[in-house]
């Protein structure tokens, strides 16, 4: 690798616009804040939070995204994190599981266990959750293309462990729209994917009423290059697309809207982040109430989790990332997040070690219990600047949502590749601003030492034999399961998929109980629905 050439940039200046391009006055007075739009915490329009007692009633969930290699190794890491005081699990799945390939598939082979744990069938789920009480812990799965299948597997493993389904808490991400735009683990075309998502939500509302069957996520478009304003706008637009689909399927907004949840990135512009969450919460409540007539406050609530770090973390002087994550976590708390995932300082370039993962958990605990900032709900509420910035962010978010509407809605924008192209252009702009030094990244493009070394100390190494063990276990399941039961469950699934009026969830749960594999279930559905054809024009 050719070493980056030393750059001599002019010293940075404080700019008058935020990272999202919002004008930031040097002084803001009382005339800037419209008190009538703010309201009280726990009261519509929820600018100041969805709970009157903020974090005093209940602290946010400390939920670290984790998983790698085999189910055995990941189970061990989960138990470590729970011992350190983590309060929820967040399962990272490997790409074959996310894209619907069994480990034996040639496309899967190089990716087994790399970015998450391999979970190809129920027997792996049984290992993954061994010794963990699923009735006492909430489990979040970052899963989209195969979300319905992984959710079915979670139900099946709970059945096996004797945990009543209605006791299950947790979240499946299950937001396919942003996969087409930024994260890439789509499988089926947009429309059958929307059906599958409605199936999971409608089924979950009855079977697992405490479970979040979707986490509408702006995080990935943000990390790819969208501004905080665009992140919120795309997410709310996607959220509305799901609401429309659920209504079309006969869903009751008062019921399903209570279980919609959201997920965002927090990057470094502190007040953009705080204002983004306050504005998003207010906007969503208004949309649910005024556009869809939701009267139950819980159906107006904008509940969200966040991840701090991501592309705001860099390999240059990696220990600086600990500070970045601390600042971002404070913004998440000031914004009223319900769950927080703090990236480890080395997460920009490797799977975190136990050492770095522990610092990330400790960061949240220090902010929660040492800093005191969580004591009073929405402590920035009423600040002239924060209220003005919230208003301005809200207006900017609405403007982007209108642009999408004018184009013809998110689904058309995605099918045409319009949103993808817009994001690529935005990413190029962001990269160019970093290259020129206009956007400051301390230790990378400014304040860089000539003799700088970027070593992090401990390097995480995946066990090189993990893939072989996964393949051996997979073969053993194929050899020992009841082949006729698998065949029967898959053919029933195929018939149900052909009928748009059927909810596929019970069929998928049956397939999981029969030890049908993720790859087999996906192939069955692909035969019926085909695959998404990615628009690749640039």
């Amino acid at each position, binding site marked *: 690798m050719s070493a980056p050439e030393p750059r001599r940039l002019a010293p940075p200046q404080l700019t008058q616009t935020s990272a999202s391009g919002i004008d930031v006055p040097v002084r803001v007075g009382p005339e800037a804040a419209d008190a009538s739009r703010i309201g009280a915490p726990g009261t519509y329009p929820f600018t100041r939070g969805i709970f009157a007692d903020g974090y005093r009633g209940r602290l946010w969930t400390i939920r670290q995204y984790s998983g790698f290699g085999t189910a055995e190794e990941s189970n061990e890491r989960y138990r470590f994190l729970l011992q350190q005081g983590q309060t929820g699990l967040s399962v990272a799945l490997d*790409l074959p599981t996310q894209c619907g390939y069994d480990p034996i598939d040639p*496309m899967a082979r*190089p*990716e087994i266990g790399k*970015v998450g744990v391999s979970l190809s069938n129920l027997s792996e789920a049984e290992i993954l959750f061994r010794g963990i009480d699923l009735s006492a812990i909430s489990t979040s799965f970052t899963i989209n293309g195969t979300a319905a299948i992984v959710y079915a597997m979670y139900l099946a493993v709970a059945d096996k462990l004797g945990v009543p389904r209605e006791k299950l808490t947790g979240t499946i991400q299950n937001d396919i729209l942003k996969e087409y735009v930024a994260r890439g683990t789509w499988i089926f075309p947009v429309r059958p994917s929307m059906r599958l998502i409605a199936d999971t939500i409608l089924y979950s509302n009855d079977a697992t009423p405490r479970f979040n069957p979707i986490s509408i996520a702006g995080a990935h478009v943000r990390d790819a290059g969208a501004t905080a304003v665009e992140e919120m706008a795309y997410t709310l637009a996607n959220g509305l697309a799901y609401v429309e689909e659920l209504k079309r399927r006969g869903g009751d907004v008062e019921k399903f809207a209570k279980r919609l949840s959201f997920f965002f990135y927090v990057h470094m512009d502190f007040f953009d982040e705080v204002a983004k969450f306050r504005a998003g919460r207010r906007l969503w409540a208004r949309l649910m109430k005024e556009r869809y007539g939701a009267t139950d406050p819980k159906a107006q609530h904008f509940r969200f989790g966040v991840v701090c770090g991501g592309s705001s973390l860099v390999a240059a002087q990696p220990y600086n990332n600990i500070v970045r994550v601390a600042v971002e976590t404070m913004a998440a708390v000031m914004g009223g997040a319900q769950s927080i995932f703090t990236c480890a300082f080395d997460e920009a370039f490797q799977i975190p070690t136990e050492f770095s993962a522990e610092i990330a958990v400790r960061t949240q605990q220090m902010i929660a219990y040492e800093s005191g900032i969580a004591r009073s709900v929405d402590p920035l509420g009423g600040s002239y600047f924060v209220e003005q910035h919230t208003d301005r962010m809200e207006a900017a978010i609405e403007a982007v949502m209108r642009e999408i509407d004018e184009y013809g809605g998110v689904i058309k924008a995605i099918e045409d590749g319009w949103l993808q192209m817009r994001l690529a*252009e935005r*990413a190029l702009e962001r990269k160019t601003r970093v290259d020129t030094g206009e956007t400051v990244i301390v230790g990378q493009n400014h304040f860089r030492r000539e003799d700088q070394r970027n070593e992090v100390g401990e390097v995480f190494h*995946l066990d090189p034999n993990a893939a072989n063990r996964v393949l051996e276990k997979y073969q053993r399941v194929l050899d020992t399961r009841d082949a006729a039961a698998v065949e029967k469950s898959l053919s029933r699934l195929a018939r149900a998929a052909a009928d748009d009026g059927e909810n596929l969830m019970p069929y998928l749960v049956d397939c999981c109980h029969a030890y049908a594999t993720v790859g087999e279930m996906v192939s069955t559905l692909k035969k019926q629905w085909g695959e998404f054809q990615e628009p690749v024009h*640039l």
Partner: protein
Amino acid sequence: MKATTQESAPLRGKRIVVAKPGLDGHDIGAKVIALALRDAGAEVIYTGLRKSPTHIARVAVDEGVDAVGLSILSGSHRELVRQVVDELRRLDAGDIKVFVGGTIPADDVEALQRLGVRGVYTSEQPLAEVVRNLARELG
């Protein structure tokens, strides 16, 4: 697209495939590079997601390109790059130069270079440097 003078178009006349091998869905880096190479005068063919090494090598040969850029953020770069390089050789196209971008730990750069990779770039590399390096390598 920017006007292409010799000064601003160091890659004029070059044809480059930008590809996403394997299952990794993070394509924004690949798209940013594709746009930057195009701005630098190159003709860019972007494959889209989830392409097999065999497919990528075949596209490179069919399109008669000068270089293949592989974007990999999933940690599978060693296996996937080896497969693409082997496949190019098998198709008697070992002269097509291979570049890699993504989340590549510093410890792995040497191994990729041993496979014949001419440049390894991470997201922190300025685009102008990437373009300069490519222009030099592609002569």
